[in-house]
Structures are given as structure tokens and as C-alpha cells.
């Protein structure tokens, strides 16, 4: 079987690029390390080096081709003893199946701090939806996303504590038992470790489970299955097995439930290669991202927020509407300072931006939406414009999302920063119960305002 040369990615968020030039022609002998081709995006150009030896059997994507998706087969190398006839089978083989040869070593960023990029390219862009919308709560939008995907794909089912009869602890699965029946809307006993593993097994065996955690606090019981089974199976099976599964539920601080029931686990999950982590703020994003998550071939951690369930948003009604995983959204354009946030904290960032505007500061608010893979491209572009970054999260500061953003900016935008990146986080304590202390423990819009001013050296 000839070896495929794949379109490499220059960055974790790159989805496609142009094939600028071939340095070899068909029939040339290839030695490991030879420069095969040049690829480019609007930001950078890179040489593709050979990993394998042999003869360049076929150029699949011609010089000058534009919009070549990452991981597409661009050429085929014949190994010793293979002849041109084997090229026919190879050409017929599906392009870019994950078990094929890796992209040439130098083409994949190997700097250890750059997170592994999912191999399947995200859809090109936000569809910039212009169709019909309906005002509904985020809770209902999530329910509709599940229902639409369940109608479209019989492999999709929902399982968790109280999802069927009781219609969900937060009533997200309202009406689903009625429409889809007990076979696809499944109540479980109080066994998080068990039903998480069950979901993973069902996914490995071809189904598309959606697992609801009443809240993500109870995902802690299931951590082993989430990390060791769900996240790692594709990799450790050499790409032979996959775990297309969505784990969803309320995450983050809830009101007056104290230490064991009030925390943001985003950075825990975001640190795990193999997981994709999504944390939407708006109802449209919640719907569109959940639909993408259900269709995705990977395990997805889908973080909702209890305090957002009841908020109303304009929700797209087209069942084809989705939001790509891995793309941030500019929630408010601005020029003076970039504020990155996710989930509930986007609301705080927008509130802060209003306050700042009244004082003549024009903040750009980025709703990260996906925490892994992180859309560093959007953030870096913004920081190159504003030269300042404030990160807002409900999680603890230590090794948090803000810590990651700060590190990424050091690596990718250092020369453009006019001030150190500033983090706004929960205070570094378990959530206290007393109302006054709880209030002190959580980030508030005023903290965001203060942080933005501090990176602007204003007070």
C-alpha cells in the first residue's frame, strides 16, 4: 500500500490551505527529510518534509490548488518493491482516514506546549445564520438540538439520572421521553462511574450516546472513564476505535450550594488530549454547538450553566444550523482591550464592556465557546489589534484557562502585548456557603472592569 502524504496543519485551528509548490515530481526518489512541497495560508508558508522513503508515485493535489483541507491526501509515495499498479487501490481508499500515515514530522507543530489538534477539520466558518429564529430559553434550545439530532440519526440516545420520567434535573429533556420512548431516553440508577463507562462502550460499538450529568460535580465519580476510556481510546487503539459521545450537564458555580456542588471544571477537562471541550454562552451557540458535538466523531465535554438555562435567546430554527467546534466568536468588537471569556462569564465581560464604554474604553469581547481546541487564531488576531488581554473565568486561577491563554500569548503574540495578560478568576478557595463569602469568591463585572483598566494602565 503506498504511503499517503497528507496536507499538514500549520496551527491547531488551521482547517485548509493552499498548495503553493511541489519541489518533487512524479518518479523522483524521496529520502527522509527531503522538502516535498510548500504550503501556505494567509498567515504563513511552510515546507512539507518527507518522513518516509521511496518514490513519489503520484501527485494527487496539483501545484497552485487552493483551499486544500487539512489531512487531505496530496501525494502518494511508493515504498521499495511497490509498483504503480498499487496506486489505483490507494486512490480509491478514503482520503485522510485517521489510521493512515501521519503528516510529515516537520509539518505538524511539535512544540510540546501546542495542544494536539483534532484531525477532523472544523467546518469552514460560522454559517452566519440568516434564517428564521424563535425566542426561547437556552434550556429549550438544548432540548431542540437533542431532538433534532435524534430525529436525524437513530444511533443517538440520551442517558443519565432522571432524564426520562422527570425530564431532567434541570428539565432539559422535557418532552423527549414522550417523543422517543424509553429505549432512547434512559433513566439510570445513581451510578455515574457505571453509566459513563456504559456510554463509552456503546459509542465504541457504534452508537452516539449523549450522557447527561445532573451536574458536572458528579462527573468526578466518572473521571476514570472520561479520561482513560473516552479520551484515550482512539489514540491508544492506533486509531482503530473511536468514542463519539457527548457528556453534557451543568458546570460552574451555582448559587448557595457550597464546596461540593459549585465549581468550574473547564480547565480540568481542557487539559486532556483526546477530549474536545465546549462551553457556550448564548442560546444559539448552545444549540449549534450541541448539534456539532453530537455529530462529532470524538468525545465532547459540553459544559452548560445552571444559571443560563432559564435565559431567553433568539434561536435559529433551521435543523441544518450548526456552530463549528473550535471557533471563538467576537461577541462585541472593540479596539482598546481584548476580553476573553466563556459560558456565564461572557455575560460579565459584556457588562464590563458597557461600563468601560461609558468611560471611553472600547473593549473587544471574545466568547471562546470552545476551550479545546482553542481558537488561538481569533484571540491572537484580536490581541494584535488591541495589544492587551484580560481573561475571565469562573474557575480557579491555578493552571486555569486564563493561565493557558497567558502562556499562548507569550508564545504567539509576545511582541504585540503592551501589558502582561491579566486573569480574572474565582478566588483560590473551595466555594464557601455564607452569602457574603460566596459573593467575594466569584468574579464580578467590576473585577473585569478593573482588570481591563489595569492592562490599559488607567484607574
Amino acid at each position, binding site marked *: 500500500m503506498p504511503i499517503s502524504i497528507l496536507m499538514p496543519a500549520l496551527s491547531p485551528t488551521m482547517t485548509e490551505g493552499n498548495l503553493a509548490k511541489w519541489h518533487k515530481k512524479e518518479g523522483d526518489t524521496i529520502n527522509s527529510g527531503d522538502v516535498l512541497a510548500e504550503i501556505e495560508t494567509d498567515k504563513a508558508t511552510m515546507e512539507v518534509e518527507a518522513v518516509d522513503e521511496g518514490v513519489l508515485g503520484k501527485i494527487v493535489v496539483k501545484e497552485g490548488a487552493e483551499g486544500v483541507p487539512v489531512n487531505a491526501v496530496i501525494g502518494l509515495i511508493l515504498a521499495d518493491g511497490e509498483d504503480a499498479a498499487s496506486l489505483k487501490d490507494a486512490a480509491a481508499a478514503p482520503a485522510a482516514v485517521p489510521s493512515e500515515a501521519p503528516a510529515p514530522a516537520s509539518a505538524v507543530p511539535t512544540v510540546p506546549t501546542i495542544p494536539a489538534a483534532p484531525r477532523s477539520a472544523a467546518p469552514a466558518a460560522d454559517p452566519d445564520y440568516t434564517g428564521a429564529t424563535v425566542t426561547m430559553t437556552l434550556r429549550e434550545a438544548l432540548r431542540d438540538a437533542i431532538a433534532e439530532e435524534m430525529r436525524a440519526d437513530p444511533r443517538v440516545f440520551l442517558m443519565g439520572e432522571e432524564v426520562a*420520567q422527570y425530564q431532567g434535573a434541570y428539565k432539559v429533556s422535557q418532552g423527549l421521553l414522550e417523543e422517543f420512548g424509553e429505549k432512547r431516553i434512559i433513566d439510570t440508577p445513581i451510578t455515574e462511574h*457505571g453509566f459513563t463507562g456504559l456510554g463509552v462502550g456503546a459509542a465504541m460499538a457504534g452508537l452516539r450516546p449523549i450522557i447527561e450529568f445532573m451536574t458536572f460535580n458528579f462527573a468526578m465519580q466518572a473521571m476514570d472513564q472520561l479520561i482513560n476510556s473516552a479520551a484515550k481510546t482512539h489514540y491508544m487503539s492506533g486509531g482503530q476505535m473511536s468514542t463519539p459521545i457527548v457528556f453534557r450537564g451543568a458546570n460552574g458555580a451555582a448559587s448557595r*450550594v457550597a*464546596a461540593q456542588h459549585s465549581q468550574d471544571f473547564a480547565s480540568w477537562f481542557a487539559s486532556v488530549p483526546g477530549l474536545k471541550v465546549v462551553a457556550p454562552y448564548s442560546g444559539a451557540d448552545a444549540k449549534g454547538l450541541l448539534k456539532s458535538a453530537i455529530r462529532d466523531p470524538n468525545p465532547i465535554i459540553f459544559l452548560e450553566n445552571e444559571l443560563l438555562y432559564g435565559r431567553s435567546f433568539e434561536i435559529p430554527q433551521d435543523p441544518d444550523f450548526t456552530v463549528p467546534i473550535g471557533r471563538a466568536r467576537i461577541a462585541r468588537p472593540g479596539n482598546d482591550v481584548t476580553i476573553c471569556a466563556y459560558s456565564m462569564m461572557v455575560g460579565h465581560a459584556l457588562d464590563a464592556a458597557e461600563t468601560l464604554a461609558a468611560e471611553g474604553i472600547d473593549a473587544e469581547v471574545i466568547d471562546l465557546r470552545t476551550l479545546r481546541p482553542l481558537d488561538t487564531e481569533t484571540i491572537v488576531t484580536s490581541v494584535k489589534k488591541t495589544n492587551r488581554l484580560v481573561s475571565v473565568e469562573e474557575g480557579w486561577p491555578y493552571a*486555569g484557562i486564563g493561565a493557558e491563554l497567558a502562556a499562548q500569548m507569550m508564545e504567539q503574540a509576545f511582541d504585540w502585548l503592551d501589558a502582561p495578560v491579566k486573569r480574572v*478568576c474565582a478566588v483560590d478557595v473551595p466555594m*464557601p*456557603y*455564607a452569602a457574603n*463569602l460566596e459573593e467575594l469568591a466569584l468574579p464580578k463585572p467590576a473585577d473585569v472592569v478593573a482588570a481591563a483598566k489595569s492592562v490599559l494602565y488607567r484607574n
Partner: protein
Amino acid sequence: MASGRDTTVKGLQAKLGNLAESEYFTPPATKPAGPENDAEYAVKGLDSLADPAFHNAPLDITDWPHDRLRGFLHRMLTIRAVEERLGELVESGDVVCPVHLAIGQEAIPVAVSHHLTPADRVFGAHRSHGHYLALGGDIYQLFAEVLGRADGCSRGMGGSMHLFAPEVGFMGSVPIVAATVPVAVGAALAAKMDKGDAVAVSYFGDGAAEEGVVHESLNLASQMNLPVLFVCENNLYASHMDISQRQPSDSTARFAQANGIPHAVIDGNDVAGTARVAGEMITAARNGGGPSYLEAVTYRWRGHVGPDENTDVGIRRSTAEIAAWKRRDPVARLVAAMTSRGDMSGNEPGAMADAIRDHVDDCAARALEAPYPENSALMDLVYAGSPTPASGGR
């Protein structure tokens, strides 16, 4: 199985007297014969214990002296009055956190705590006001805690779902279901290493029994022969789901059986009967007899969380079911037995309840006026021993 211990049903009978003949042991399930229903595979169920039409007669208090029973009644009425008041505070908006009430379940912790001292180590879960109060936990401090005040039993840091009162042996309750079960086994290990006669008690629900860690804990306790009493308060529901929707049998004692742990399935609304069996089990633990498992069948009158009755949920929870279970009221059945034996005159129980309510109201009123923790308390308690190291951010 731990060596030298007879944990067969026979051995258990020897240890606990002839209870097996009494109502406290469930008869074997009588499922029809069939390949999958061989006696060998049949699991025991609760039978009449799960049916409120039964077990609602006045209690058998034959061997119990008057003052003991008065003590039981006082504690049960205290728990009920405190929880009713907490429910009112939720309704009035003074308390805005989840409050899980155990009204209707008061007999179990009162019966178990009767045999405990502050040297014992007791653990609860989300529905633990009664566990705390039955041990003698301070009423004012409980109100202060649920109101998030500095005087609370957890200094206002925990709330209703994180109660601690080590001074009475209450080592903690937390809302992550089943989380304290292995912790209680660890406290039993410490007790055994200390060579004293302290025991550990682990209260958990029928829902908690579904968590894997409970099974690991049972195995550990059995294998290490640790002085721990597992008390499964089986109220037939976990949140809004009936036990029949969650388990193949409505009795959880089969898990003890599987781990070679002596067990009894009893009417948890019979304070005298529960105290008798719990006493045997705790005595066995103190004397090196290892773990026991007490499945006490009961029912909560209020919903899963908050003061309302939750009649709209579950496959059988209804106004009628709640009314039927109220006839198995642990308080009324004790009062009936005591008045018929002449332990109390007709209006004495009412007067006792009134006095308790006055005291409870007073505690609640004081707690409502109590100060919140100092803001400086926010960072103080993260680590033991030294001030919290700052880790940046904000």
C-alpha cells in the same frame, strides 16, 4: 470472608437473638419457579415493609423503660420541629439553599445514636439534619449554619449539605452521594488501630447503595473486619425515582449478604425495634465482631428537596401514598404505645412538643440575628496549619 466469623444467616441469628423469627427479617422472596427465577438466584425484597398498609400499629415497647422512651420521643420531636422550622425558613426566603428534609425518618438516627458516644465517628450525607441532632448536635448552631452565619456548626462555610460537629462525634455530611461511606470505613480502621472500642456509623440512602464505592466499602469493611455499622435508610426513593426503577430488588441488604456482612432489614419507623437491632450490631462491632448492615425502611414525608411534598413525581408517590405512610408515623406510634402503657398522660406529648417548638423557634430567631462570617474568613481555612499561600489571579 474474614476468618473466624460466622456470617451465614444462622450465625447472624445467633448474634442477634431470634430476630429472624420476628418481623425484622424479611422472608425470602416468593418468585415463581423458572430458569431465571431459581431459588438460588432469587433476591429478597422488602415485602410488607415497603407497604404502608402494614407496620403501623403501636410499637412493642415491652422491654423499654419509660425514661428511655421519653428520651427517644424528645429527640424525634426535636428533629421534626427543627426541620419544620427549616421548611418555613425556605418558604419565607430566609434560606435559599437546597434543604433536604427527613421528616418521617426521625426514628432511625435517634435509635442508632442511643448507643453512641462522642468517641464514635458518624457520617451522613445530604439529608443529615436528623443525624446531627440525634447525636446531640446544637440546634442553634444548625440554624446558624443553614443560614450561613459564623456561629454555624461548620462556621458558615458548609450550609445544610456540609454539616460537621466533631464534639458530638458527627464527623461530617456531604452532598456527593455515597462519598462518606468509604470515609466512615476509614474512621473504623482508625478505631481498630487505636484498640479502643469506638465504632463508625455510615448513614446512606437506597440511592447511594447504587454507587460503586459503596460496594468497595462493604468489601473492605468485611475483609478487614472493621467496627462499622452501615445504616441504609431506605426511603424507597432517590430524588424523584422509585427504587423499582433503579434496582432489581427493593431491598439493598443483598449487597451486605454478598460481602459476608451480617445484616437485618427492619421497620425504620419503629424506634424501639430499630434501637434493639442497632444496639446488637454496635455491641458486636465494639467487641471485635466487625461490620454490620442495617437496612431501615422508612419514608420521607416531604419532597426530595425543600418543604413541599413532591406528589407529582415518581411512579407511585401521590397524596394517597403519603397519607398512607403518615399512618406509619414513627412519632405517633411511639406516643400511642406509651400512652396505652400509661407512660404518658393524654396531653403530655402535646405539651412536650410545644415546649420543644418554643425552644426551636427561639434558636431560629437567634440564628436569624447572628452575624455572617468576617470577610477575612474567605482565605483562612484552605490549608491546615499555615496561612493560605497566594496563587495569583484576580
